[in-house]
């Protein structure tokens, strides 16, 4: 049997890799890829806590489904914004999107 610690360590590592991607990538779409990695790490944790905690309360899985829905919404709006910005400014590099910087 797999101890809970394996899942938690894997999810922590996946979250850290995603965090690095969000902070270090130049391309706005690559930043969204990093966000997806972080959301998946959270989902692993939620489902693992459901399985290793009380099976009767299904809240962990329900929360994971809500995270799925939020991730889908985030990707739809995020990629829509990226494409809109690309049309107007012809760039997807996050550093060059400084219109609102003062």
């Amino acid at each position, binding site marked *: *049997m797999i101890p809970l610690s394996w899942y938690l360590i894997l999810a922590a590592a*996946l979250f850290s890799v995603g965090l*690095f991607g969000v902070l270090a990538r130049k391309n706005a779409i690559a930043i*969204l890829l990093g966000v997806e990695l972080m959301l998946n790490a959270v989902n692993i944790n939620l489902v693992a806590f*459901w399985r290793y905690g009380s*099976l009767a309360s*299904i809240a962990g899985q*329900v929360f994971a489904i809500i995270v799925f*829905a939020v991730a889908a919404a985030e990707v739809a709006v995020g990629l829509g914004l990226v494409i809109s910005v690309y049309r107007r400014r012809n760039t997807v590099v996050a550093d060059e999107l400084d219109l609102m910087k003062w």
Partner: protein
Amino acid sequence: MTAIQIIFILSALVILGAAVMVVSTKNLVHAALYLVATLFGVAVLFALLDATFLTVVQVVVYIGAIAILFIFAIMLTRREMRDQGEQLNGGWGAAALIGLLTFGGLFLLLGNWRGFGATAAALPSGFDGVVELGTALVSTDAFVLPFEVASVLLLAALIGAVYVAGTKK
């Protein structure tokens, strides 16, 4: 070492290796395909955790919809962002440090928690996770309100995405 543990270790290696490639590869289309590999690994973990419905949703929604959406967006914006050239910004060293510190902090925090080495209880006979989940999602004393709010959120995001990305005359 049991077969389950070997499956876990293999999928963990796939997840972490592909995740590192997602954040480090220069070619964005390859990054999106590595993301698909990561998502498949996570689906395997869901299957190991007896979350059957989430396994299917992970493959159908995450890989089938979200990853494909990423590939479309990458192809639509490809001209500007060449495959060659630096893909990481100047602060990537600090970003790597923050990532390592986050992992170390989480590891220390979890290591001191007494539930860290817990093992799972066997599934009771006749336990059907899909039935439990479906009942919980639509029963009024459980999660029907968050479920409906999530659908409204999806609708709002859909309309917002069409409005933001659409061409204006």
